[in-house]
């Protein structure tokens, strides 16, 4: 079984509204894809994505696996800039190791 990966540019993500962005990601993940976002999602967006995911959990879709680097502080340490976020279906993706600058995940076809 093949697993598709979508690498989405920061420009593409920034061109979407908040709801549109989350819908786009979740639709991709529910289709079985692994979505990698350049620029990443903020903590608030990730929380909203978890909330949206929970409304759509079913027998066939248990949820998502999400991993990302901690946001970098910029602009006099006030603004938090997310870096990269990886989201995949929990059924096929599992993070095995994670620290500040490394995400190690396994992807296995079901």
């Amino acid at each position, binding site marked *: 079984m093949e697993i598709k990966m979508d690498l989405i540019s920061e420009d593409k993500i920034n061109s979407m509204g908040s709801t549109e962005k989350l819908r786009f990601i979740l639709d991709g993940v529910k289709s079985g894809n692994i979505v990698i976002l350049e620029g990443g999602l903020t903590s*608030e967006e*990730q*929380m909203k994505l978890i909330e949206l995911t929970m*409304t759509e*959990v079913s027998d066939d879709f248990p*949820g998502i696996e*999400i991993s990302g680097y901690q946001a970098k502080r910029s602009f006099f340490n006030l603004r938090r800039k997310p870096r990269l976020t990886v989201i995949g279906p929990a059924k096929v993706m599992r993070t095995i190791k*994670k620290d500040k600058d490394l995400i190690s995940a396994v992807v296995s076809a079901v």
Partner: protein
Amino acid sequence: MKLRKRRKGILSRLLRALFFRKVPAKIGIYGPPNAGKTTLANTIIHTFVDENEDIGVSTEVPHETRRAVRKEGVLIDLKSKSVQNPYLNVSPDSNVTSTAEQKPREGKSKLKLDIVDTPGLATKIDFHDFMAFGLEEKEAKKRAKEATEGVIEAIKWLDDIDGVLLLMDATEDPYTQTNIVIIGNLEARSIPMIVVANKMDLAEAAPQRIADAFPQHTVIPISALKGENMGELYMEMARRFR
């Protein structure tokens, strides 16, 4: 728009803190499933309310708490015997951030709080995981459905919370996305928090790993089950959530 909303949240919190803080602060106990949130809530209630009263049931099955439960008006009295008991204040890990030496000021030893025990936050809920604990398929699916609703409820409670005890299992890797997302959200909303490294009574517990992962936050190691080091946690709560 988002920024304005966040500023408004911070401003209203500040105004409330300055002029309208008549009602007890609502302190949410947050964390991933099986970190010991309900055990901690029960320990707090046993210490300050009634030793026979439980806020909820804690078992080894994840997502046992599927509805947020609020206990109103819990009076944290730092001079009560159970807090002063030296056995309960022993911190075996001296390297972890410790604030136990700082004693509360005279007349500031009591604090009334509402304690909110929230369902565990998770990004996935698979009914098969419940079947592994012996539940029938139908019951497991029902529990999974309730657990998803519980996660949503815990997230929604963040809008009404004044402070958070973020519980982590000291035997597990703390650098999970769930922990990072909760901390990021609390920081963005300027909600004061204490990171609590639970299960320090277990041999494999490494609370220092939590302190290293989140160096910007105070980490208090405890065992909610055995009541170890609770005095230090109560003192930090009195300082942080007053």
